[in-house]
C-alpha cells in the first residue's frame, strides 16, 4: 500500500536516512524498530510529507506521492499521529477534533465515531487540550487521525511517555484498530511492536539492517540485531 524506495532525507546538511526501502501492506501492522536517533521519526515525517526527501520515491496505492503536500496525503487516505502526544494546546479537545472534521464530507459523523472509540474523551471535550494528561492527549491524537477515515495510519511511538496504567489500554486500541486499517508503527520498545506486527524492519543509523515477519520467534533475532 505504501512503498518507499531509496529514501534519503535529513535536516539541513545532515542526512538521517541513507536510502531506505520499506513496503507497508494493505492490512495489519508493519513496524519499524530502532534505537533513539536511528531515524524512525524522520522516516514517518517523510512518509506523511512533513519532510522533503532528497532522493527516493514514496508511493501510496501505486501513485507517486513524493512531492505531494501533507494535507493532500491525508485526503488521499493517510493519517499520522506524531510522537509526544502533540495537540493544539490552546484549543479545546473538541476543537482539536473539529480542525480535522471541518469541511470534510460526513465530518460530524466521523467525529462522533472517533469519540465512540475513545469514550474517555467525551467528558473532556470542553477542556483545553494542553491541560489533558499524556494518555488523554494520545487518545485525542488517535481520535483526530481517525476522523479522516484513513486506510493507512502512521503511529510514532504511541505509548512513549504515557503513564503505565494507560499504556495497556492504548495498546489494546491499536491492536483492535489493526483489524480495520493498515498501521505503520514506529517503536523502540520491542514487546508491543513484535506482538502487533506482521512485518518488521530494524532501522540502525538510517539504514534498514534486517527485516522479517513478526511473532515471538523473531523477537530474539530483533533483540540480537538491536543488541538489547
Amino acid at each position, binding site marked *: 500500500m505504501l512503498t518507499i524506495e531509496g529514501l534519503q532525507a535529513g535536516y539541513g546538511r545532515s542526512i538521517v536516512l541513507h536510502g531506505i526501502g520499506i513496503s507497508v501492506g494493505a492490512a495489519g501492522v508493519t513496524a519499524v524498530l530502532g534505537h533513539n536517533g536511528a531515524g524512525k521519526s524522520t522516516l514517518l*515525517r517523510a512518509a*506523511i*510529507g*512533513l519532510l522533503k526527501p532528497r532522493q527516493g520515491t514514496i508511493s501510496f496505492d501505486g501513485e507517486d506521492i513524493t512531492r505531494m*503536500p*501533507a*494535507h493532500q496525503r*491525508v*485526503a488521499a487516505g493517510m*493519517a*499520522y499521529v*506524531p510522537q*509526544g*502526544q*502533540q*495537540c*493544539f*494546546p*490552546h*484549543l479545546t479537545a473538541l*476543537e482539536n477534533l*473539529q*480542525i*480535522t472534521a*471541518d*469541511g*470534510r464530507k460526513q465530518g460530524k459523523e466521523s467525529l462522533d465515531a472517533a469519540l465512540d472509540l475513545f469514550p474517555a474523551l467525551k467528558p473532556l471535550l470542553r477542556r*483545553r*487540550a*494542553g*491541560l*489533558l494528561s499524556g494518555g488523554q*492527549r494520545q487518545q485525542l491524537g488517535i481520535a*483526530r*487521525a481517525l476522523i*479522516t477515515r484513513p486506510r493507512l495510519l502512521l503511529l510514532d511511538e504511541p505509548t512513549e511517555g504515557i503513564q503505565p496504567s494507560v499504556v495497556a489500554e492504548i495498546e489494546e486500541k491499536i491492536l483492535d484498530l489493526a483489524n480495520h486499517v493498515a498501521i505503520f508503527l514506529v517503536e523502540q520498545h520491542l514487546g508491543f511492536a513484535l506482538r502487533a506486527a506482521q512485518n518488521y524492519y530494524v532501522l540502525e543509523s538510517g539504514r534498514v539492517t534486517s527485516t522479517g515477519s513478526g511473532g515471538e520467534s523473531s523477537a530474539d533475532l530483533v533483540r540480537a540485531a538491536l543488541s538489547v
Partner: protein
Amino acid sequence: MTVVASQLFTGISIGAVLLLIALGLALTFGQMGVINMAHGEFIMAGAYTTFVLQSAITDAGVSLLVAIPVAFAVAGAMGVLLEFLLIRRLYARPLDTLLVTWGVSLLLQQLARDIFGAPNVQTRAPEVLTGNTRIAGDLTMANNRLFILGLVVLAVAALTVALRLTSFGRRIRAVVQNRDLAAVSGVPTARIDRLTFFIGSGLAGIAGVALTLLGPIGPTMGTNIIIDAFLVVVVGGIGHLRGSVIVAFVLGVLQSSVEYLTTLSVAKVAVFVAIVAFLQWRPQGAFTLRTRSLA
C-alpha cells in the same frame, strides 16, 4: 481632573490605532514567524486609498465609510501578493525576510511618491467628525477620536469572533499552535498562511483609514508608527493577542501623558527607556503562553 481624563482619552485613541497595527503584525508574526517590515506601507496604502476615494466620492462621510472595507481589501491584497511573491520562498530564513520586506517597504514608499507626489496630502474630515462631544461637565472628546475608538472596537470584535467562532479562525489558531500537526490534520497550511496575511495586512489598511483623521497622509507615515507597533507586539508577548491589546493602550496613554507634561521627543525617549527596562526584567514580554504541553 478634566485634563487627566482628556489625556487618558487621547492616549486610548492613539493606543487603539497602535492596536490595529500591532494585531496585524502579531497575526503574521505568530502565524509564520515573519517580521514584515513593509507592514507600515500597508497602513500608508489604506490612507492613500481613503484619499483616492475622497476625490471620487465627494461626500466626505460616505467616502470615509466606503474607504474602510476598500482599504482593508487593498492592503490585504498587497499583503497576499507580498506573501505569494516573496515571503513564501523565505520562510526558513528570517533574516532574509527582514531585509527583503524592508526593501519592499522602501519600494512602496517610492511608488507612493511617484503616484501622489512627495508632499503630504490631506483628506477632508466629514462635518460630524470635526467637532467635540461633551461627555460630562467640562469634559469633551473629539469626535474623530471617538470614531476611531469605535472603529477599532468593531474591528477587534470582528477579528475575535472570526478567530474564535469560525472554522477558518480555528484553522488559523491551529496553524499558529502547531503547524505540522495542522498539516497532517488536513489543513492546507499554505492557503491558511495567505488568508492570515490578508487579514493582518487588511487591519493595517483600516489603521491607515483611521490615521487620515488624525494627520496628513505621506509616503513615510507608516514607518513613523510601525516602530511603536513592533514595541507593542514585543512587550505584549509574541503571539499573545490579549497582551497586545493591553500593552497598546498602556503605551498610548503613557506616551500621550508624558507628551502632555513635556515634549514629543522627551515622551518618545521616556517610552523607549521604559520598554528597554521592562524587557530587561521580563524578556519574554508581559504575557506568555503557559501550557502543560511541550508542543
